[in-house]
């Protein structure tokens, strides 16, 4: 059913936890009746330097969350914002069709966290270059 990578990340999820002073926080999923992820990012110079998660969900959701934190560290915010659901599934060695929504949730978490980071930047730009660059979008 699941690839060995999924099982590995489910058994020993990387980066479980939160970052009290995160630069961006992303919540995704359905908090009323489904899986949810909370993703915490630390970002410096436009690059993700640390990532942690908390996930309520099935094995695939937990594995996708764990995988995405590993994937994120070292990526630029642009790369992170452009993440695709398939990227995560591929990194996990594939997911059953009925579990693709788990990688989608993780991707949503990333996008929401980046958005949160950018909103904070807009509100309080500490990095002019980053803020400027973003405006050219």
């Amino acid at each position, binding site marked *: 059913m699941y690839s060995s990578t999924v*099982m590995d990340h*489910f*058994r020993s*999820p990387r980066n*479980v936890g*939160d970052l009290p002073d995160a630069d961006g926080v992303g919540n995704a999923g359905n*908090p*009323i*009746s*489904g*899986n*949810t992820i*909370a993703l915490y990012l630390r970002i410096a110079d436009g690059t993700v330097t640390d990532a942690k998660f*908390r*996930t*309520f*969900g*099935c*094995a695939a*959701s*937990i594995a996708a969350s764990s995988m995405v934190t590993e994937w994120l560290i070292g990526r630029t915010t642009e790369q992170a914002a452009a993440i695709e659901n398939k990227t995560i599934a591929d990194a996990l060695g594939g997911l*059953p*069709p*009925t*579990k693709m*929504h788990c990688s989608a949730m993780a991707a949503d978490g990333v996008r929401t966290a980046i958005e949160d980071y950018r909103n904070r930047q807009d509100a309080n730009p500490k990095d002019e270059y980053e803020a400027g660059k973003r405006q050219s979008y």
Partner: protein
Amino acid sequence: MASIYLDHNATTPVRPEVYDAMEPFFRVRFGNASSIHRYGQEARSAVEEARSRVAGLVNARPSEIYFTSGGTESDNLALKGIAYTRRAFGRHIITTNIEHSAVLNSCGFLEREGFEVTYLPVDEYGRIDPGQVADALTDHTILISIMHANNEIGTVQPVGEIGRIARDNGVCFHTDAVQSAGKLPVDVEAMHADLLSLSGHKIYGPKGVGAIYIRNGVEIEPTAHGGHHENDVRSGTENTVGIVGLGKAAELAAEEREREFRNLSEMRDALEARIRFEIDGVRINGHPERRLPGTLNVSFSGAEGDSLIMSLDLAGIAVSTGSACTSGAIEPSHVLLALGRDPRTALGSVRFSFGHDNTMEDVDYVMSRLPGIVSRLREVSAAQVPG
């Protein structure tokens, strides 16, 4: 590694006695029970013997037992067969909102075909009050279908009283006894049942075979039309092997029911007590007493069911979230929602279902792993735990 199976409500292994009874019918006594030569006659007599055994399990006459391909087909036949036969008299059906999907989705089909279905709500333990049934009756009611025991939470319904109400009002009464057979007394007379569903693989018989009891005199439109098998109620070449297996399983189930009840209750109660004592934030789903002996459904707040199952599986313990789900999509159980659980709690539930081969050591082993698994998953989801 440990290998402890605690998912007997999903399916059971074939018992050795059952296997031995079936074995000759694959290659030696392989005839078609409808053939008139000796191969056919051998098959026929085995089928009829099995029919008597199944009849014995539910206190029916052999002529009232018809073999099907399983519980799902029996439920479909009961619902659709009665609906089609009686539609001239009315198009109203009464059931509950915690039935097995075989009943619920047959009702859904019938609704699309112009029938009206009342889905009675249950109380927080999953019980129907017979008064609710009486209140739901209309002049057009043709059928009441209420399960004997629920597969997810084990709650047992007052089917005798419900059957009495049906009988007094000239309405057909069907009960799905797939989960209760072999665990509780199942008696079509005491239940006033007109139709009753059984399945082989829940009672240590083979998969792909089931039976339906239809009271003598109750007319039914078949769902499988063809060569007039099973007294024209269910066509299709008789699955001799499966039928013989079901017959043997029914015989054993009847013989061992009381002992089984005691054993299963003991193990289930021990697990329940230890979970309550050793793990915080748990809630037992189902009726405290009126419940199947081997069934224990527990909600662990902050831990998701599928992850729990997966973790337990990695530890060599096989359990499930309730009903074996085929879609793979995460959806809170309709049964737990019907009890009033919020969807998150429903999603964090696991069903342990004991069976013939379990022992008290299995309870110990589960309790050596379960608390750690629950806290690990709670750690993963910590920020997400409501309350």
